[in-house]
């Protein structure tokens, strides 16, 4: 219920501005699930869908929220000068419980974007909130912008 209210608030605060087919978040699909796709294709397909993230702008410049079945993330980004590149930091949560931090660089390529970075993930969930062993993984994000009127910063 709390997460529903939070997501509704976010949705009302700003429009959807991006969709990530591959999310640069914890438990990266490419690293964890893709290698098993041949052995368990149904699970791999479901988990691919679970990590598809919808990005929402917030009133504060540079601040945005990404929401997927798996992760809800607050992120902040700033452009690097006039380059089509921005640095990004994010606080991924699971049902709004913070589970780690991530940082990366995002490259805008027309309507699409590519994000490379690293994620420190301690795990945890509301049913078992204490973090486990820290796991550092590379991240790769890939998606497209849905709002072409948004000319910059690269992601709000």
């Amino acid at each position, binding site marked *: 219920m709390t997460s529903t209210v939070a997501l509704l608030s976010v949705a009302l605060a700003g429009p959807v501005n991006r969709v990530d087919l591959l999310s640069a978040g*914890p*438990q990266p699909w490419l*690293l*964890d699930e893709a*290698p*098993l796709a*041949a*052995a*368990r294709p*149904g*699970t791999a397909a*479901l*988990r691919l869908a*679970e990590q598809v993230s919808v990005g929402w702008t917030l009133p504060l410049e540079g601040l945005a929220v990404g929401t997927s*079945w*798996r992760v809800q993330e607050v992120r902040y980004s700033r452009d690097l000068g006039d380059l089509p590149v921005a640095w990004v930091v994010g606080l991924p949560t*699971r*049902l709004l*419980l913070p589970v780690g931090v991530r940082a990366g660089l995002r490259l805008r390529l027309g309507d699409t974007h590519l994000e490379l970075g690293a994620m420190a*993930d301690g*795990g945890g*969930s*509301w*049913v*078992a909130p204490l973090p*486990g*062993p820290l*796991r550092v993984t590379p991240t790769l994000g890939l998606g497209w912008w849905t709002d072409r009127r948004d000319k910059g910063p690269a992601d709000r």
Partner: protein
Amino acid sequence: MAASLHLDEAAIEVDVFLTNDRVPVLIDGPRLDPLTCRTVDGAELEDDVWLLQNDLVDLDDGYRCGVEADPAWPDARVGSAPVHTLDGLTEQLLADPPAAVLLDLRWTPNVSHAPEVFAAEVLERWWRDDPPTTLRVVADRPQMVQAIEDRAAAAGRDVVTLLRWPTEPPLGSAAGARLATMLAADAGAADPWHAVSIARADGLLADARVLRRSDVVSRPAGAELGLQGGSSEHPAAAWLDSTDWVLDATGGVQ
């Protein structure tokens, strides 16, 4: 019996259920499986045959069970033998024990004896013969695991208990339950090791179709992990460490 249970394997897994007169038999649920069991006359089962409504003698007199036809096992036949008992298994194990035996207690709410009765009948019979092999016990539900732990503690024995993940539904769709558990766990609303902790189990028997890498990473120190439904060639087996094991589709443990 030795051949049908693959006792030549290094380790084996067998399903156990209780008859009405509390005899542990090697059946994988509360009913005889109509695909593998027949009446003594060779007829297909027309109605459900509940173990809780039948004594062992009723099963012996009325039914024969086997396995579905499998090209890998030319001798496999439906309805070929009387229902095997746990006593019969332990007798076999005394003569030729594998390194480890996994007893899968198929206790099911509402159609089983109480977990405490289930635990007592299985463990006391096992300890009576006490075959020289490592015993692990797996169960779907916390109350069954707790009953095993309590019985073992009362007897001053140590039994390794494992909780199956995801829990299989008593009589409904296993695929549906697996999907629901996976969605809940992936969203952060369920956690296998939390379930193990609640059940007071020693470890987890995880379905290879569902196990996440993060579940392996977040394993508590000393907890045992088995992978079910795969093989040592399954890519998820690469996440396991040397003390873990894989339960393959034939009931062998690798």
